[in-house]
């Protein structure tokens, strides 16, 4: 699939042309956990797609026509339809494309996945706060909070008695949660899952999934990106290229 390791487009770049028939385009950024959700679903469902990376520290003007909020991920199809908000892009792909359904058909089971997603909802902003903290001493409070949020997820796995959040095989909710757990090591936050053994086992199982391992970014690259990102460097999004 083209573009996933391509240099990002920045201010002054020409807008890309229309999306060819038979393909869907995702505007992404190599290190963005939200965009990773969409890439995981595209991969898991075997959907033919092209990737255009956006320099989030120096956004092209035309990108705001794709998403007025200027955020990734954004999907664009050959009809020019635009879809954004990562969870909405994932659900759209599951509905619009045939093949393996990642969300359950049963209305109650589907609602359960969405309730778990809500349970998880504080994690992304906590991780961002952790990333941005100036003073290394501030983080014990944040780590405590993260630990509490992870305990909620542990409880779900304990009650369900299954390996994954949606049952005994991987499904949508697992892909939606994964990108943040993937980044714990790079952020030196592994201790936050010390008291949540089932969650740890889940992380190990996720790493064995072919879709997850195809999209995985190594710890060094994550760290390199984080360093540059915190310095507001316009080179951050292309770290390693």
């Amino acid at each position, binding site marked *: 699939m083209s573009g996933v390791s391509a240099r990002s487009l920045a201010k002054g770049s020409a807008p890309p042309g229309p999306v060819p028939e038979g393909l869907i385009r995702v505007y992404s950024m190599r290190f963005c956990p939200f965009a990773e959700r969409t890439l995981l679903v595209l991969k898991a469902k075997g959907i033919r797609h092209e990737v255009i990376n956006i320099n989030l520290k120096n956004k092209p003007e035309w990108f705001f026509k794709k998403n*007025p*909020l200027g955020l990734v991920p954004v999907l664009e*199809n050959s*009809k020019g*339809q635009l*879809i*954004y*908000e990562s969870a*909405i*892009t994932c*659900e*759209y792909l599951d*509905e*619009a494309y045939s093949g393996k359904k990642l969300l359950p058909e049963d*209305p*109650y089971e*589907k*609602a359960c996945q*969405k*309730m778990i997603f*809500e349970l998880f909802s504080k994690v992304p902003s906590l991780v961002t706060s952790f990333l941005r903290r100036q003073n290394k001493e501030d983080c014990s409070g944040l780590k405590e909070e993260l630990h509490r949020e992870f305990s909620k997820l542990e409880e779900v796995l304990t009650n369900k008695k299954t390996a994954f959040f949606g049952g005994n095989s991987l499904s949508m909710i697992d892909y939606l949660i994964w990108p943040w757990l993937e980044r714990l090591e790079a952020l030196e936050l592994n201790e936050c899952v010390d008291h949540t053994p089932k969650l740890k086992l889940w992380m190990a199982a996720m790493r064995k999934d072919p879709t997850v391992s195809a999209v995985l970014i190594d710890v060094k690259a994550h760290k390199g990106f984080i360093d540059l990102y915190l310095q507001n460097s316009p080179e951050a999004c292309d770290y390693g290229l």
Partner: protein
Amino acid sequence: MSGDATKALGKGSSAPGPVPEGLIRIYSMRFCPYSHRTRLVLKAKGIRHEIVNINLRNKPEWYYTKHPLGQIPVLETSQCQLIYESVIACEYLDDAYPGRKLFPCDPYERARQKMLSELFCKILDYQNTTFFGGDCISMIDYLLWPWFERLDVYGIADCVSHTPALRLWIASMKQDPTVCALLTDKSIFQGYLSLYFQNNPNAFDFGLC
């Protein structure tokens, strides 16, 4: 189906029994905009349901077995399944019950309604149709409605004075039979708010005999 006009259950109340077959129960509060969304969907789809109102300032101990934080709305089925978060509850009802679909069938149109719902507070930019989903009322209109109904009560109705299309939408919504059936009288709302801000535990039952 039992009406909305029942007193809110508080601490010391007995837990209601299991939900009878053929019914779905909603734990609600008469003046809450979030549970209003779910009640709109129940009504619009003609779903047989019973309403249990919860006193939010004096929650029954048993209610935490329905929702870990004691929030509303919560749906409970006759199979003891619990569904919470207003948007999740609305979507569940649309999926699980036959008849009129409130969400569009087309995946892109569904995604568009979900994006609109997310951007509700930030963007009032929508296409030139009577309702947010097109020429007929649909899920997105019901998801947004409760806040607009309250504009007048909260005394901020003039925030739509510069948005004629939105005012037209409000007028069209007031003609919808489902919206009308659940409309709360302005003076009752104001009575509730008055008591609520005084932390009066009887706020939730204002207007009931």
